[in-house]
């Protein structure tokens, strides 16, 4: 029985057993990971997970949810029984109106690659070996490399009693490389990651070379004074900002709870006019495109920021109907044991590129820093989108358009709105990368505040 047939059968049973409405999601998740550090493989794993999530509604707005990690009929039946029991003892939720009505879903090609699904542990180990050897051969100062090579294969089916039927399978592969160079105390660190739905598009040697170059070039870091700097953000650093734009601003749930930094700011020039962000789950330039969202609602394009002006929020069915609107197709897909995220989010953001090469972004910087990525970032003030975290891996001081030397890592505390409200330039197509929060070029911001030193 296919995942979709199983989902449909379970929905039918839920209705027969008294559910006013029912939604069933069935997933299968196959993950393989080869993890390495200090030039050896230390963790090599594979797992096959699957499960069924059930949401039932009784008496129009009493909702119960269960999940089981089994495709066995008996386990699913038990899950259904519990869901109905939970819904019956639940209190009415006045904001729940209905599950989504069915809409035509145009299938999306190019999201599943057999090459990724059939990649073997031996091929992954060979890829890791190539990373390690390429980095070592690059320069005598390279000490070691670490990271992971992963492949993921997801099958998903979503149905509901109103007629929604959605099914897909997709693949993702990722190779992450951290390379360390130079002696302790003067150590440089390079970080590069390549993600693709097709593992064959990942060239371990090329990723390793970039990480090794950054490691060597970031050796002998010096402490630079705290304060404000211009900042050239590589795509992985921009990705952190994109993640917080969704969580602290563009999610309708946060907006409805009056915590969003967008309250009273929609339609205003909140960001720099050079910034345009589009979210489109069907855009194959993003890492995990999909024809439908976590409720089986078709994905479509949504302009989030147009020339610096925030235009739209992201809705799922629940938040949309609360305002008498239609879902924008941003219900999150949840499967496996991921952290529980309970809000609609833009997960396929695309930042429009500008026309500056990476070299030009550096050349246009009078006194600033080049940042590879951020680490352990959390919000301090939601209403102002103030966040704090660390820089990670290569960071360099730029003076008068030239990289002067590597810097020690620093803590920043600043507002995403302030940073993206003052953009000097946006990188061109050559700087664009697929990240977990969206597809983005490098961005140079006019000011960015560093508030703390560390010791490396």
């Amino acid at each position, binding site marked *: 029985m296919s995942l979709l047939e199983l989902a449909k059968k379970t929905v039918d049973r839920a209705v027969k057993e008294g559910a006013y409405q029912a939604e069933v999601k069935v997933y299968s998740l196959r993950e393989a990971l080869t993890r390495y550090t200090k030039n050896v493989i230390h963790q090599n794993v594979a797992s096959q997970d699957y499960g069924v999530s059930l949401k039932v509604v009784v008496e129009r707005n009493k909702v119960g949810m269960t*999940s089981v*990690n089994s495709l066995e009929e008996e386990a699913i039946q038990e899950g259904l029984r519990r869901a109905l029991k939970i819904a019956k003892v639940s209190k009415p939720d006045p*904001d729940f109106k209905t599950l989504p009505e069915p809409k035509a879903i145009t299938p999306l090609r190019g999201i599943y690659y057999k090459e990724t699904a059939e990649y073997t542990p031996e091929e992954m180990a060979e890829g890791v070996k190539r990373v390690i050897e390429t980095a070592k051969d690059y320069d005598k100062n390279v000490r070691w490399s670490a990271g992971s090579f992963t492949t993921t294969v997801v099958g998903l089916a979503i149905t509901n009693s109103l007629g929604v039927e959605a099914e897909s399978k997709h693949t993702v592969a990722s190779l992450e490389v951290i390379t360390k160079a130079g002696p302790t105390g003067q150590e440089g660190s390079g970080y590069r990651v390549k993600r693709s739905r097709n593992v064959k598009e990942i060239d371990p040697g090329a990723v390793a070379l970039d990480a090794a170059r950054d490691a060597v070039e970031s050796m002998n870091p010096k402490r630079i004074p705290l304060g404000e700097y211009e900042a050239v953000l590589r795509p992985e650093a921009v990705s952190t900002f994109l993640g917080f734009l969704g969580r602290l601003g563009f999610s309708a749930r946060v907006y409805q709870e009056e915590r969003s930094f967008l309250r009273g700011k929609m339609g205003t020039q909140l960001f720099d006019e050079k910034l345009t962000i589009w979210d489109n789950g069907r855009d194959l330039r993003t890492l995990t495109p999909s024809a439908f969202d976590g409720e089986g609602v078709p994905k479509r394009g949504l302009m989030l920021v147009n020339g610096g002006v925030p235009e739209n929020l992201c809705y799922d069915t629940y938040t949309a109907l609360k305002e008498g609107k239609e879902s924008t197709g941003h219900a999150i897909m949840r499967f496996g044991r991921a*952290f529980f995220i309970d809000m609609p989010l833009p997960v396929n953001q695309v930042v429009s590129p500008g026309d500056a090469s990476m070299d030009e972004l550096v050349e246009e910087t009078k006194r600033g820093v080049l940042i590879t990525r951020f680490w352990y970032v959390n919000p301090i003030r939601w209403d102002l989108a103030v966040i704090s975290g660390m820089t990670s891996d290569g960071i360099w001081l730029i003076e008068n358009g030239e990289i002067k030397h590597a810097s020690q890592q620093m803590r920043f505390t600043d507002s995403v709105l302030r940073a993206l409200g003052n953009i000097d330039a946006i990188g061109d197509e050559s700087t664009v990368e697929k990240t977990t929060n969206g597809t983005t070029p490098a961005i140079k911001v006019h000011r960015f505040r560093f508030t703390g030193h560390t010791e490396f």
Partner: protein
Amino acid sequence: MGLELASKLGATYADIRFVEDERRIVRVKNGSPERLSHSIGSGFGVRVIVEGSWGFAGSRDVTPDSVRKTVEMAVKIARASALKSRGEVRLADTPVVRDTYETRVRKDPLKVPLEEILDILISADEAFREKSSHVRTTTNSIEARREEKYIATSEGSRIRQRIVYCGGSGQGIVLKNGLPQRRSYQINFRTMGYENVEEVDLAERAREAAVEAEALLEARTCPTEIRTDLILDGAHLGLQIHETIGHGSELDRVLGTEVDLAGMSFLTLDKRGKFRYGSELVNFVADATAEGGLGTFGYDDEGVPAKKVYLVKEGILVGYQSSRETAAEIGDEESSGAMRADSPLHLPLVRMTNINLLPGNWKSDEIIEETREGILMRGTKMWSIDQMRLNFQFGTEIGWLIKNGEIAEVVRDPTYTGISYEFWGSVDAIAKDGWTIYGITGCGKGKPGQVMYVGHGCSRTRIKNVRVGVTGRL
């Protein structure tokens, strides 16, 4: 069957772990049930050492055919690992054990009627609203979990465990003139039955939180860029322990095997027995035997008995949290018993148990009374720390300025920052009363990501001369 097959396929060591995991979450938002969910998962994971290298595979399908295929996959993966391995894996010795362990439970939290739980949560919601005229959103939840594990090793250990967890939390968000503020409260998560919930008056905690939330709306912002004495207690102090010494003393980080996700640690092996991590008042232990702690169990996922080990003694770094492999790698005779996985499909990692700051000699009240100028902070709002566990920054929901031994005024959006060994080196008072183990249910680590339950015992503590108010001018 699985262990025999692994041996036949060339494994010099193997273990197999079967798990059934049942969880129930009841959450009420703005007085209405938002999430009533119940999940049951089972499965197994197999670890093998073949040709000196590790392989791991797991599956949800607990059938003989699936066990065979999964063992074969683990062996295949181990052989692939050997392509770039560091040589023969060695494991520190551990006794062969045949035993069972169960959390002491008076009332099964998974069998408590939903109606009873909903009543508690709705009462807490009403209590918050009763005391707050600016409330916008409230959430209240109670969670329960049962984990049944069976671990068998090729060395002969056979261990059954039944661990039960429960606790809850609530929060209210208030808003005035566009300024949101939040106060939260807990039913401390513990390994215990539903009696843990029954001991707490959640509505009363909600009322207290609402009064503080309203006060925050009238409070001025925490002074910026000052140095002052910081007083911490409760669950927030638990998180400070968690992020600094907790993660910092995990031996896998020290040895570099978490560098690509969770980072490393500055507590390198050369510092053991010499490095001053805290003042002489500071003693940290990793204690998986502590009654009721969220990181309490009978045996870890390698079958190593639960232990209490010193990490920091009178301020000096003396130990690490370890596994059988990492312990052997640094020449220790035995593992600290810290290997745990959050799912049968995940590989066990070095995880915190209960990382406790042992009590001192002060009375809690005296710590405030004998502070000339300082700030008391509570309720975690923001946390961040660097890759080596040195530079940290935390923000809390509420702060109280202290002047001449008395609480002077409430301040909002307080933050503080520091370097972890300087911070713990500046501790000059730890209370003997009020010592509690606070549970954290969301400790993330590993790839694929794992979420672990851990505990942190602590009592009110004063830290001298801390940098406070780092949001600066915004």
